[in-house]
Each structure stands twice: as C-alpha cells, then as structure tokens.
C-alpha cells in the first residue's frame, strides 16, 4: 500500500484517485447491505432508514452542512494519524491531542479576551496547534530515544488529556452562569471562529482542507516528504544515508499532534463556544480509522472523512426515526473495517 501512494504521489495521481473513488463506493455499498441485515434482524425497516438518511443529509442544505461540520475535525485528526504513519509511527493519540489543543486554545481565549478578533483568532489557532503539538512531543521524544513505543504512550495520554480538561472546567475555569454543568465561561465573540451564514460550517473546514493539501504536497513534492517516506520504507537504510531519523520522528509527531490540536481549537471556538468535557465523540479514534482505510493518500482521506461523516449522521437519524441507540454507528464502522480488511486479504491471496 505505501508503495503505490509513494509512486503515485509523483507520477500517477489520476489513476489512483479513480480507483480510490470506486473502492470507497464499493465499500460503502457492501457495508450498508450488511448493516441492513442487522437492522432487519432488529425488526427495523432498513430501506426506510436509508431513505430517511438520504433525505436528511442530501435533501436540504442544512443536513448537508452538518455533514461538513462533522467532517471538519475528522480531516484534521486523520492527518494527525496519516503523517506519522508515513514515517512508520502509529499515533493513536489524536483524541488526547485534540483535547489539549482545545484546552490551550481556551486558556488563550479566556486570558486575552480583550484582544480584537484579528489578533485573538490567530493566537488561539496557534495555541491550539501548540497544545496538541506539545502533547505529542512527549511520545515523540520517548520514541526517538527508544524508551517507550509511541503507540502505547499516545494511547495512554488519551486518558490523561480529558482529565486535565475536567480539572479546569470543574475548578479554575468553571462558569458561574450555570452551576449544573461543568463548563468554562463562554468565549467572547472575538474568540469565535467565523461560520458560514445560517449554518455551523466554520473556518475550521478551510483549515482542515489547507492542512490536507499541505500534507499531500509536502509528502509528494518536497525533499522532506521524500525523506519521511524513505524512513517509513526502510529506517535502517535511511539512517545509513545520513537522514536524521530521530529528528524527523520528533518533528513529525509535533506537527501531527498540532493538527489534531487545531481540530480541538475549532470545536471549542466555533461549535461549543466554550470548553466542555464532552468535546469529542471519539473524533481522534475515527480519524485513525479514516487515515488507515485511506492508506495515507490525501484524496482518499478526504473521501473517507466524508464517508465517515455520513456514517455518523446515519447514527443520529436512526436514533430519531427508528429509535435505535446512537451506538449502532459503532457497529456500522466495525462492518466497514471488516470489509476493508477482508478485501485486502482477498486481494493479497489472489
């Protein structure tokens, strides 16, 4: 897999995109068919459920705009996984990095509430990046020094980050306006990312798309991308060629964590308008799935992030129209994962 994207990035972009689209659609169709059987077994009407979803998601602008809102953090958390994966590192810590980005951005929004928007927004964006980046710096250093495997350290730090957020919203930052909910005070207007009129689509979508474009460009068209892919392809040979492997490990982890942190910043600044405990319904983990299924290819990430935004909307709608719990989304995601894994096995055997 890394091969064809590595070459394709430079030589054959159109071919791979065409294949990616067909593949994503085929996967979605099979997954929906399998999922329909499950709904049938539960006595629900799958055709009706899918029709409701289609009507809701694509039938009006609001439904579609919500899809893009959901896709926004997924784009960034999947880049946070995809970038280290090209180096051979497995970053499972998107969730924690997202929380820490949100936390540091909130600190900026609360401390510098007097600044005008044109200063405050860049500041909290940078802080969001820094929060996630610093959170990933620790696993990066530990890995580069061969002390702790990055998969374990990033996973464990996922449990720490929400606790830090809780510590602040239960304590120092607890809003006075509502004692029932632990949450920070509302951000001043200058700290809110602008949204598109009448929807919740916000500037974060643009950030995500720019990050994705930069990701694709950097890996395919720059000498840093070449060296990152070289390390991912053969770390020992890269070391022997004088490529600073450890430096790349640390830098890549910081940038990846920073991008996930920006997702957290966008969620608090644009969607919530304050720091809350339930910031993410697992965007970091879904981002892992997205990146992994996309095989690190930038355009596939875009497709897959969109697909998973649709999937999580399915959960919402089924909850309302069919009375099934939201958790069925996890079943649908698992079905997709199985199909992709199975397909790779079949392709390998054949």
């Amino acid at each position, binding site marked *: 897999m890394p091969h064809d994207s*590595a070459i394709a990035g430079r030589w054959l972009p159109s071919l791979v995109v065409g294949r990616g689209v067909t593949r994503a659609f085929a996967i979605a169709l099979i997954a929906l068919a399998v999922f329909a059987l499950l709904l049938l077994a539960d006595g629900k009407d799958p055709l009706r459920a899918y029709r409701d979803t289609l009507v809701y998601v694509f039938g009006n602008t609001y439904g579609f705009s919500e899809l893009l809102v959901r896709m926004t953090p997924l784009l960034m958390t999947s880049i946070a996984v995809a970038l280290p994966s090209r180096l051979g590192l497995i970053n499972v810590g998107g969730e924690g990095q997202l929380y820490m980005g949100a936390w540091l951005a909130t600190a900026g929004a609360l401390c510098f509430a007097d600044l005008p928007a044109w200063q405050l927004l860049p500041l909290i964006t940078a802080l969001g990046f820094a929060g996630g980046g610093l959170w990933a710096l620790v696993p990066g250093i530990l890995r580069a020094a061969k002390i702790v495997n990055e998969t374990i350290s990033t996973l464990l730090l996922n449990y720490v980050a929400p606790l830090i957020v809780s510590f602040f919203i239960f304590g120092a930052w607890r809003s006075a306006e509502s004692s029932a909910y632990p949450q920070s005070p509302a951000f001043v207007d200058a700290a809110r990312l602008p949204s598109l009129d009448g929807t919740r689509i916000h500037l974060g979508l643009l950030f995500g798309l720019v990050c994705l474009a930069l990701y694709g460009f950097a890996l395919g068209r720059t000498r840093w991308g*070449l060296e990152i892919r*070289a390390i991912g*392809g053969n770390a020992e*040979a890269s070391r*022997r*060629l004088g490529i600073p492997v450890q430096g790349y490990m640390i830098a890549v982890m910081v940038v990846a964590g920073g991008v996930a942190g920006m997702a957290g910043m966008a969620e608090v600044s644009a969607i919530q308008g304050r720091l809350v405990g339930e910031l993410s319904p697992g965007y970091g983990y879904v981002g892992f799935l997205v990146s992994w299924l996309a095989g690190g290819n930038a355009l596939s990430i875009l497709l897959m992030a969109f697909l998973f935004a649709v999937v999580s909307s399915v959960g919402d709608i089924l909850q309302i129209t069919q009375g099934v719990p939201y958790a069925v989304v996890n079943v649908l995601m698992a079905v997709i994962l199985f199909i992709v894994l199975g397909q790779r096995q079949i392709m390998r055997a054949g």
Partner: protein
Amino acid sequence: MTDAPALLEANGVVKRFGALLANDVAEFAVHAGEVVALVGENGAGKSTLCKILYGYYRPDAGEFRVAGERLTITSPREARRHGIGMVFQNLSLIPALTVWENIALYVEDLPWLIGPAQLRRRMRRLADRLGLAVDPNLPVGRLAVGDRQKVEILKQLLAGAKLLILDEPTKVLAPQETEGLFRTIAELRDEGYGLIFVTHKLREVLACADRIAVMRQGRIVGTLRKSEADEATLLALMFGAASPVVAPPRSPPKAPGELALQLDRITTAPEIGAVALRDVSLTLRSGEILGVAGVSGNGQRELAEVVLGLRRQLRGGKRLWGEDAATWSVARVRESGIASIPDDALGLALIPGFTVRENLALGSGRRYRAGLDLDWRRVAADMESSRAQLHFPPLPLDAIAAVLSGGNQQRLVLTRELVHGPKLIVALYPTRGLDARSTQAVRTVFDEARAADAAVLLFSEDLDELFVVCDRLIVLREGRIAGTFSPESFNPETIGPWMVGAANAA
C-alpha cells in the same frame, strides 16, 4: 542408479512472470544418492526452478513425477508430503524459539502432547550421524548462521524429506562452515538422499556435485557429469560462447598519498551476541586499497560502522583527512566524501518501495536541494554519467527497487555511492551473492577508484578476492587486529591460520 525411477523428475516446465520467461526447462531429474548442482548467473532462473519444484510457484506448464508417480505439486505443504524439502536463502526459523521447538513446529506426525525428550532423541540420532550437532535447547536467535542452517536441514529431514533443495546455501557461510556443509552433503548422499544444490560458485560445484546442470536465461543449457566438468567448460556454458570473466590488468601500485583514515585504539561497547572492537588502530592513505580479512562476525561490521559514523566508539580516536571525526554524524561523514557499499543492498542501502529515481536521490546531503524539492533533472543527469562511467546497463528509473534483480540493486547502490568521486569507499562483502561477471565489474570499480586516488576499505571473506584487489591486508579476529600483511605474504597458508587463531600458538 539410472534404473530405479528418479526421486523427482520434471519435464517441460514453463514459468512466465508477465513478459519475462523465467523458466523453460525441458527435463530435469534427481535420483536417490545423487547431488545435482544448479549453476548459472544471477537471474538465470535457478531459484525459480527450485521454487516450482517445491510447490511455491505454480508453473504455467510442466509434468512432474515423484518416485515414478505422476502428480502435480500445488503447495509447499504437498511437496513436503511427497518428501521434498527446501532450505531457503533466508532461513525460515523463529529466533525466539529453541531449536527443538522450531523443529516441532514443522514436523507433522507428532502427538498433540509434544514430548520434548522423544523429539530430541530423534533429532540427536540423526544429528550425530550427519555432523549436524546443535544444542536443541538453545534459542535459534543465539545460533550462528551456519548452525541455523544445520537446524533447517535437520528440520527437513525429520519432516521426512528424501529430496533436499538447498538454495545458495553457502552464500551466508564462512569458509570453514562451508566445508562442514559439504561434509554433511556427502553424508546425506551416501545415505541415499537426493540433493539439489544451487550456487554460482564454480569451485563449490566441482567440490561436491555428481551432476551439474547449467542454466542460462531460464533454460538448462547443458548437464555434465562431474568427470566431464571443469571450470572452463562450465563458464562457456554459463555465459555462452564468449566467456567474459577475464580480469583486466590491475593498475600499478601508487606512491602512498595523503592520510585518509586514521583509527587510534578504537574500542566499542560490548553487545550481547556480537563482538566488540578492542584497541583497533589502522591508517589508510589515498590511492590505497586496504583489505580486512577474517571470519565474519569477528568485528568487521562494527569496524565499518565506526568508520561510517553509524556506531560510537567507547574509547579511541578517529581522524578523517587529518580532522578529528570522532563525533561526526553520518550525514557529515558522507558529505566529507565517504561512500558506503553494504553487503545487503535492499536491506541497508535502498528503500524497497521507492523507485530507482527516488533511491538515487537519497543520501546526497544538500547537494540537490532546489526550493522545497530536489532538482530531479540534475539528479538524473549526474546519475546517468556515473552509470556510464561504471559501464552498467541503463537502470529503469521508474521501476520499484524491490523488484530489481539482486545484481541491479547492487548496481543501483554503486551508481549512487560513486557518483561524486568519493575519497574513501567502505565496502562490506560487496561481491557476496554476485555472479562472476558482476563480481569482476565491482572489482574493476575499486581498481579505478584507486587509480583516481581514492582510498578503499574492503571487507571480504574471500581471500582470493582480497589477494587480487588489495595493497595491504589486516586480519580481524575477536575484535582485534590479529595481523597486518603486505602482498609478499598474500597466500592462504600464511593468512589462514591468523584468521582462525592458530598462528599465536605456532
């Protein structure tokens, strides 16, 4: 021998990989109590034929008989059931498990509750008879390569193999180990096993084969009895009418140039399962080829890594062209004009999934930087002139490195490493696994580099190669320099004892 049906007989075997005709073998047979050698250049189709016989590749056409019975072999498992075993170049053992556990994994007729004692008894009986004794309780990871190979052979025999296919078994062995292997092969033959032995070293073929099948471009171009075969006939068959392996005259020795490399009492940290360098001092001047002889595993890898900056010395000094280079990074060492030619091109010098073009661009420091990217046109132009200078055939720039033949991978590394006229070349077993023609090409490269005033540090296990190529020799043993030799004493009788440690006693 010819009356009984052959252990294995294959007729009309054809195998294509895409447009490439890998095998077109009219007939091939192995009888009980016979050693058949398969020889040929790299890429002549020897390994492919073996893998077909072992059921690893499915041929496009072909008829197979095992002990006279016609059948098709569709998987290695089935091959094993019919008594065919294969020892691959890269041995397939699990390092963390002990010897007997590795064997138990493979042998199928064991009771489900494995009695180690019983298996070890069976193993020992066989091992003692055949000179394959290995401690069954040691983890395989702690065995030397030669011992691992013994385990692999034992494993096949205990699994019931009557016919053993050995795919370049000597490639990974030191000279003494090779001789042990030959003794085992002779024992096996005398006990009535059939053996197929793949190699491209003619001396080995003449030493141990009963019959020799020569392959060229996928076909068997001739089968000789041992009595009919000699080096000249075989070479003619291998390469067609024109035998190319004529060593060109060596450039004359030069007056020693400036000091390129100085090591002063280098000592490295001990590691489990490896030898540490102890007080290694040496000097190497421009225009000189210094050979490092010795049984592999006596500190060669460590010494090369210290020179290249890949390994830090515990004590001692390193100077390159007079400058203190003790703490230089790998990148700095490379930029100072050192080229590295490792023994495993794909594992240590290339990115398997990269194209040839991308591989050529790596490791050049800041030389090709252009904006955010590299100047790909200049990379291609420089590499093209380097390739032409080395007289290599054109490399397919957009092919993936992993699918190139071993010889082409080596050429790719040489093209890249020698492109900027290096001042010091560190080469670790650079001709291991290459056929005669490629070997000669590599040796010529060193000679030309010397003529251009470069220094060469050449690690090799092949004394003949060192004698031909080098101006001076050192022998490494157990991490120390056991002796230094000049061309007057270049003969195996003098240097051999120093390699194995017998000279101190004498």
